[in-house]
């Protein structure tokens, strides 16, 4: 039988070294007796076994498990860990087996330690111990963890309270952080730590953030077990808060509504005076309830462009990005449009860009919103806004991109593949050039996209050409269709 006594400070590293050596020497778990922090002479009573053969390698998962379990207060923890390490030699996947009783036991211990560590990071309460004015402010705390976890938990405090000196005393060890250096020392019992006046403010906060109308004492105790209460300055208030809660809640319910203070009316009147000055069209559009699409969208997206633009470009509806930004064609379809337009010398700034439907229609799916095509009713209702935009702008040419724009403007989305590239006329004679919607191109498989994009590019080229010829045409022909285009169809 070998006796291994681990030191109280640096227990994990010591256990790892010993376990490594024992495993290397082939010492079975039943032949080792582990202990921590007893007579130091014992440590050297047995010579360390000399490691033989190659160094043992073990999964990262085991090391993580051991790093927690060594701090459990169960006296058998070291032996259980070594037994598992021993078993892992033959069963390499043992750790992944969540049903194995040995692994389960150790995982439960790790969980206990981890929870205790977490509670320590939550429930340590520092008190300031030196008069303010010292170079680094100094604080101290007494804490009683369930397991001897100070060494495990102290680095958290060193990372958090980097600009102050502090000590934490526990029944097991004490930790001291001075000028950026962390060290551990043996237990010294519970020291006297003087009162700290900040605790009174903290109790005031605790008392007032509590809502007496919703008492859930069990939920509180599950998370803040009573064993921690004696070192929490706020816990002394708990009994009186619970005792008075019901009466306070009933008092609130009983109290009749009071009359508003006199100043309320004056302040509300001042707040109601809304600054005016925005575009009436945009204001009205934002208040649109003609169809249900407004509910769920961020905002209506009006068209934008120079008020005297000769070209009006109409797309389908705002997408995710357009809905967020409140501007048309800023998403990926807009980017494709800009890229193709640049190739044919057409600039978006020359045109008034808008959509046939002004609100984004979508289905929520997790963290994304999936585009949904607007239906005939929605297109019909929103046409009211498009007509208003057309009246305001009186464009010389409209570029209708995609089926929805075609439907809204010409009344039909049928056979777009045949009709695209041609000009149709609205009732007032305005020519409409039909083309694909750029997002349709984005959805096409690569093999088909080339041809469709070429068609789209040709249509934009035609539009650009027509725009350049416009001043001459207007004077000569009074707004007739450009020569380069095919003859218009009746609609």
């Amino acid at each position, binding site marked *: 039988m070998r006796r291994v006594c681990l030191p109280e400070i640096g227990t994990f590293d010591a256990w790892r070294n010993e376990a490594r050596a024992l495993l290397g020497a082939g010492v079975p778990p039943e032949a080792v007796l582990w202990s921590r922090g007893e007579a130091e002479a014992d440590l050297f009573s047995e010579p360390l076994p000399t490691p033989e053969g190659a160094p043992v390698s073990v999964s990262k998962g085991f090391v993580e498990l051991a790093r927690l379990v060594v701090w459990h207060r169960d006296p058998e923890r070291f032996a259980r860990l070594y037994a598992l390490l021993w078993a892992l030699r033959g069963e390499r996947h043992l750790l*992944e087996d*969540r*049903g194995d009783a040995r692994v389960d036991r150790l995982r439960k211990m790790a969980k206990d330690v981890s929870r205790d560590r*977490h509670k320590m*990071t*939550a*429930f340590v*309460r*520092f008190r*300031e111990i030196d008069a303010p004015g010292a170079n680094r402010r100094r*604080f101290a705390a007494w804490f009683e963890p369930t397991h001897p976890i100070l060494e495990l938990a102290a680095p958290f*405090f060193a*990372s*958090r*309270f*980097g*600009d*102050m000196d502090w000590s934490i005393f526990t029944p097991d060890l004490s930790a001291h952080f001075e000028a*950026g250096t962390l060290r551990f020392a043996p237990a010294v019992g519970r020291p006297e730590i003087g009162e700290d006046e*900040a605790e*009174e*403010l*903290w109790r*005031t*906060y*605790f008392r*007032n*953030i*509590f*809502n007496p109308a*919703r*008492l*859930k004492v069990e939920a*509180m105790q599950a*998370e803040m077990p009573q064993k921690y209460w004696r070192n*929490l300055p706020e816990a002394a208030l708990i009994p009186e808060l619970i005792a008075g*809660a019901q009466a306070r*809640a009933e008092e*609130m*319910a009983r*109290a009749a*509504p*009071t009359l*508003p*203070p006199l100043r*309320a009316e004056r*302040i*509300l009147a*001042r707040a109601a005076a809304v600054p005016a000055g925005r575009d009436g069209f945009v204001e009205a559009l934002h208040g649109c309830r003609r169809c249900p699409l407004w509910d*769920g969208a*961020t*905002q209506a997206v009006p068209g934008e462009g120079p008020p005297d633009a000769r070209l009006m470009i109409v797309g389908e509806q705002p997408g*995710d990005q357009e*809905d*967020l*930004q409140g501007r048309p064609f800023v998403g990926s379809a807009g980017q494709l449009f800009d890229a193709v337009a640049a190739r044919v010398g057409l600039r978006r700034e020359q045109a008034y860009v808008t959509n046939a439907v002004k609100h984004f229609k*979508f289905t*929520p799916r*997790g963290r994304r*919103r999936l585009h949904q095509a607007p239906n005939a009713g929605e297109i019909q209702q929103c046409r009211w806004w498009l007509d208003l935009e057309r009246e305001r702008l009186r464009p010389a040419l409209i570029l209708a991109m995609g089926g929805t724009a075609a439907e809204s403007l010409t009344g039909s989305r049928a056979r777009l593949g045949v009709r695209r590239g041609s000009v149709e006329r609205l009732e007032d004679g305005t020519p409409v050039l039909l083309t694909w919607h750029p997002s349709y191109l984005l959805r096409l498989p690569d093999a088909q996209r080339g041809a469709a994009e070429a068609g789209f590019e040709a249509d934009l080229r035609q539009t650009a050409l027509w725009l350049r010829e416009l001043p001459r045409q207007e004077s000569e022909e009074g707004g007739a269709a450009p020569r380069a285009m095919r003859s218009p169809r009746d609609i």
Partner: protein
Amino acid sequence: MNNMAGLTLDEKLAILSDAAKYDASCASSGGQKRNSRDGKGLGSTTGSGICHAYTPDGRCISLLKILMTNFCIYDCAYCVNRVSSNVQRARFSPEEVVHLTLEFYRRNYIEGLFLSSGIIRSPDETMADMVRIARSLRCEHHFRGYIHLKTIPDADPMLIEQAGLYADRLSINVELPTDASVTRYAPEKKPAQIRKAMADVRLKREERKDASFTGKRPPRFAPAGQSTQMIVGADGANDAQILKTSTRLYSGYELRRVYYSAFSPIPDSSAALPLVRPPLMREHRLYQADWLLRFYGFDLAEITEAAPDGNLDLEIDPKLAWALANRHRFPVDVNRAERELLLRIPGVGTKSTQRILATRRHRTLRYEDLRRMGVGLKQARPFLTALDWHPRGLDAQDLRARFAPPPEQLQLI
């Protein structure tokens, strides 16, 4: 109302924390990891927040949750701070908020600050004061703990942009589930404006997520994301409407959390509200449904179809309710079923699903294994099969009654 000058810091703290307690959120999780190991500052964030204390209402205290002031020019019926209420008013100076935050933090009482405010003078001036506090903490005091700012939707976008550079999380409360309710009970608030502000936060976060072409990363914007809160039970909206609003908020604005806060009686309440107090269980069921939507692959329709009147069953949880209404899909074989199906078994959570999948790669699972994996077998038993477990009674008429309270009946199975 000019009795404010005489208030001590302790008295102000009492008034302004009392006024802040109706905000449910106290989370300090998410975002970047920081520490002060270099000795040049104070504070750290670990990614998962810490609850430093619990009050007897079962809520955790993670942050110093206070109002800068409870003076307010708005008149929201459900709010204790509305202009027409007679509560005592107080106002912190920015220095006082900074002082309280740092001193509480140094004593390990809190993870950081959750600052909210009534609206004084104008939304812009209020927001500017809040930004000033956050800037002072970050830049003058090198505070590296958590900061959550409640933004004011009507404030200048420039101010919200600055807020996002100092704060870990921003939130804007939608307050009530439907636009109609907001218009009715919070006449000064504009639902469209609230959505627009949330859209702005999402856009700014995305803008700053990508490194520029020089490879330099711009400062992160609200690294712990944004959240919002809905008050449940103050208006007539049912759970289906509430959850519908949530799914839209999650999908549209990448919210980290939607908080549901059961309407709670407030001192000096407004006559405009019907003071029927909603059961706290309703809030709990909404959170469960919210989780099913976000982590268990449930559709909104699946959750609400089991609730004919649009409200979730208060006696049993929504996952069990769905399973009872869809018994033809059970029992599920834990040794064969895919992840999506395992997640549908009542009593099986995301963690136990992970464990089932990992272990069954090596061997076939038995009933006892499931217990060790953390499966809630009381619930799960009738809905799954394992190597040595084949349940009966899935068709039993009284299956629901066995789960509904009182809990003693559970042992009859």
